[in-house]
């Protein structure tokens, strides 16, 4: 990972913005702009062409989902732009909107709480910048909670593996988390893809995307 990942940061609360700047700087990100509203975010991202956009969802001027809409707009202009949005609460619709934007990769949707887990948070930012996708565990849990016949075929352990997959974790990381061997995880993943009728692939990112694409193809109109 290049130590010079250039970030545009948008967060309207000054203290938190400064905290995030301190965090990013400490982990060798370069913050080219730290702004407090959606229009400023659009302008700063267009000016600086950063490697990563990190934004809050509820921001001025509308104080609704302005940050998210700005992020989606930016990804429409530059489909591969890595974007991580922070949300105060779990909202599957937000995650879906992000995944639908651009090429559906290099996006992250996280609860603001995750910021507190400093190293994990930074890992997530790096994963997204590096081409990965990261969806908050809470969102994934909510999605997995829904009964969906193909998912009903999964065993409990396979659901666990699927949830961790959706967070963008590697087989090794999942194996460490579940205290099983990497080979076992590989077998689970194979089973999941088989049961969900998804073609097997070695590309972790594509697996995640496939899973998430499947998950958000929900019956809600």
């Amino acid at each position: 990972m290049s130590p010079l990942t250039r970030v545009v940061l948008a967060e309207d609360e000054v203290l938190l913005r400064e905290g995030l700047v301190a965090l990013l700087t400490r982990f060798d990100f370069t913050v080219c702009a730290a702004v407090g509203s959606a229009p400023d975010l659009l302008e700063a991202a267009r000016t600086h062409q950063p490697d990563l956009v990190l934004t809050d969802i509820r921001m001025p001027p509308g104080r609704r989902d302005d940050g998210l809409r700005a992020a989606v707009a930016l990804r429409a202009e530059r489909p591969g732009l890595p974007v991580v949005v922070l949300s105060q609460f779990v909202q599957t619709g937000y995650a879906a909107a992000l995944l639908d934007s651009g090429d559906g990769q290099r996006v992250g949707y996280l609860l603001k709480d995750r910021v507190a887990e400093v190293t994990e948070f930074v890992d997530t930012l790096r994963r997204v910048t590096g081409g990965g996708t990261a969806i908050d565990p809470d969102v994934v849990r909510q999605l997995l909670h829904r009964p969906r016949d193909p998912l009903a075929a999964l065993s409990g352990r396979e659901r666990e593996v699927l949830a961790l997959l959706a967070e963008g974790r590697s087989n090794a990381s999942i194996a460490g988390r579940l205290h099983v061997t990497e080979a076992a995880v590989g077998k689970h993943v194979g089973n999941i893809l088989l049961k969900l009728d998804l073609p097997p692939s070695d590309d972790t990112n594509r697996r995640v995307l496939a899973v998430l694409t499947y998950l958000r193809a929900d019956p809600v109109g």
Partner: protein
Amino acid sequence: MTSEHPRHLAATLRRRDWLISAWPWRALAYLVSTVPIAGVLTVGLLVIGAPLLAAANALRLHNRPPEIPLMLFLAVGSLTLVALAPIVSFPVAAVERWRLGLVDGRPLPASPWPGLAARYRTAAGWREVAYLFWLGGFVPVAYWVFLVLVLLDIGMVTSPWLAGDSDPVVIWRPIESAGQAIPYAVVGVLLLPVLCYGVGLLAAGQAAVARWALGSPVDAAALREVARSRTRLVGAYEAERRRIERDLHDGAQPRLTSLTLQLGLARLDVPEDSPAARPLAVAHDQARGLMVMLRQLVHGIRPQSLTDLGLAGAVRELADAAPVAVTVHADVDGALPEIVETTAYFVVSEALSNVARHAGATRAEVRLSRAGGDLVVEVSDDGRGGADPARGTGLTGLADRVAAADGRLLLASPPGGPTLVRVELPCRR
């Protein structure tokens, strides 16, 4: 006043000192003052009933129908009086309300002249007319019966003196001497208190009827105003909740996140073996716990999804989180009053959790639409039905909440299903 000093006649009748209190006199005054009013009304009633009387009379005495001109004259007079009754009843009712003060300390508020049309159109006006007929028709009969009883008693009490005179007094049997009359006199004296109670009962009964007929009826307009003011109040609460949610979301939550972040950063810089490491870790954990708690707290105050996404979006989130498959059809353009939004959200949330808990359903459908000035929320499922508000399935709470927003809840849930909950919420501001 306390219960030691009852404020109306009926309540005093059980008291032991009733006979020596002022109440029998007040009752008597009430009855006596009724006489002229009831008398006038009786004359009026006779005029109204005149055509009938005349017809009956003609048939009985002359065995032929009454003459047409006479009948026409009487009928016109009768109809005129009936037509005037709602007007005449107004002053009479006013006097009666005032007179009720004799035996009843609870005031009946005087009602102002409501306008001519209102006298003919309002239920209150016709209740007063009915009271008029009762006062002129039934009350005199009751008074006559009572008067006969009183005269009888007076006769019994005075019989020893009367019996000595020329003619024998007849009570049950002729009484010829003072000696024979004495038992009657004794009974008559003993009956005096009973008559006093009779006065009391008669007056109390009449007063009760007067209070019932002349009391200001439940005022529909006032009730509507109360309902509107309750809705306004609930609306104000809603606005306040929204403000609190916004303050917490914009102020407290990011600051707490920032604090937790700083603690997390500090932990990175403090070596594990430092004495500060442990307390710092504890502080960090507590701050994280507080973040979760605050998030749940804010959600309880007002669902943030509602603020961010509007009703349709927030309902889709609810559907997303529901354990059964839920289809959402939302056709709600334009802004809705806050209270309507939150109530509708609550309805969907409760209804969906009922579906999950009780219905045994596999699918549910939520429909949001506008009908006239109303927002209509419909939640249906394919479950087993038989939802009964009496069995406490959260439906009562739902109905209360809907009523507070001045709306109404309709439920169709036959045994075997399907169940449909329909809520209509008025959207006027």
